[in-house]
């Protein structure tokens, strides 16, 4: 960041992103903590009508900045225009929510007993990676762990996509099509329109 600005505690939330993945590596139940990153931005948008989460608190965005700019892991070239176009942003949001829904359904199947707990992390919605060390049973029912594996898969996949576009294009290219970003900006725009109309 720039030289004359005061650092805040929330400028270090990129560390949280690393801690999150580390915790989930050892115990998948920690994946649930990722719900904070889902709910907080929506509260900020729905209640405050702002993107303060994206603007100041997003640990993932900050991590891409630390790696891309500070550690020079980004080519820092402009991304193709279609990546930040409306149809791609909303298309990716739709795809992402569909996958989120299918993950919830998978959790339901385990909850209802129609399916059993699968100790795997699915990368890019395709590649199954064994992850059995991260769960050895607990007092909680199996569906809780199933959701953990599913949610961790989603978080890891989206971070990997973000890292790829960070390396290829601008540091925070992920932000241009981040489903949370698209959703919160959409909510804010509707709220802004209602407020002035």
């Amino acid at each position, binding site marked *: *960041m*720039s*030289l*004359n*600005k005061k650092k805040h505690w929330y400028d270090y939330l990129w560390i949280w992103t690393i801690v999150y993945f580390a915790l989930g590596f050892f115990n998948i139940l920690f994946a649930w903590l990722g719900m904070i990153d889902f709910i907080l931005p929506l509260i*900020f*948008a729905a209640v*405050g*009508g*702002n*993107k*303060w989460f*994206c*603007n*100041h608190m997003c640990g993932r*965005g900050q991590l891409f*900045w630390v790696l891309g700019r500070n550690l020079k892991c980004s080519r*820092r070239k*402009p*991304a193709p*225009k279609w*990546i*930040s176009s409306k149809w791609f*942003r909303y298309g990716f949001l739709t795809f992402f929510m569909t996958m989120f829904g299918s993950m919830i359904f998978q959790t339901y199947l385990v909850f209802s007993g129609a399916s059993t707990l699968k100790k795997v992390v699915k990368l890019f919605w395709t590649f199954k990676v064994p992850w059995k060390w991260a769960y050895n049973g607990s007092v909680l029912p199996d569906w809780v762990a199933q959701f953990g594996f599913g949610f961790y898969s989603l978080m890891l996949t989206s971070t990997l996509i973000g890292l790829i576009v960070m390396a290829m*294009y*601008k*540091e*925070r*290219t*992920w*932000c*241009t099509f981040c489903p949370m*970003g*698209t959703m*919160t*900006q959409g*909510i*804010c*725009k509707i*709220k*802004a329109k209602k*407020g002035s109309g």
Partner: protein
Amino acid sequence: MRKAAVDTNRCVACGVCALQCPKEAIGIYKGSYAVVDVAKCVGCGMCEKACPSGSINVAEVQDVIK
């Protein structure tokens, strides 16, 4: 004088430009898009370099209202 201009229709309101601005001349308007305070802008171009969606363009402008 060089000033930053935002394509508000393209802007994703991520706020990277505002974080980079050394003059604190950029704000995110109601979570919708970035707004540049032209009076504060020195046209350094740090925001343009950081913007991931290519929504900021720093260019020469004439007759800036002081």
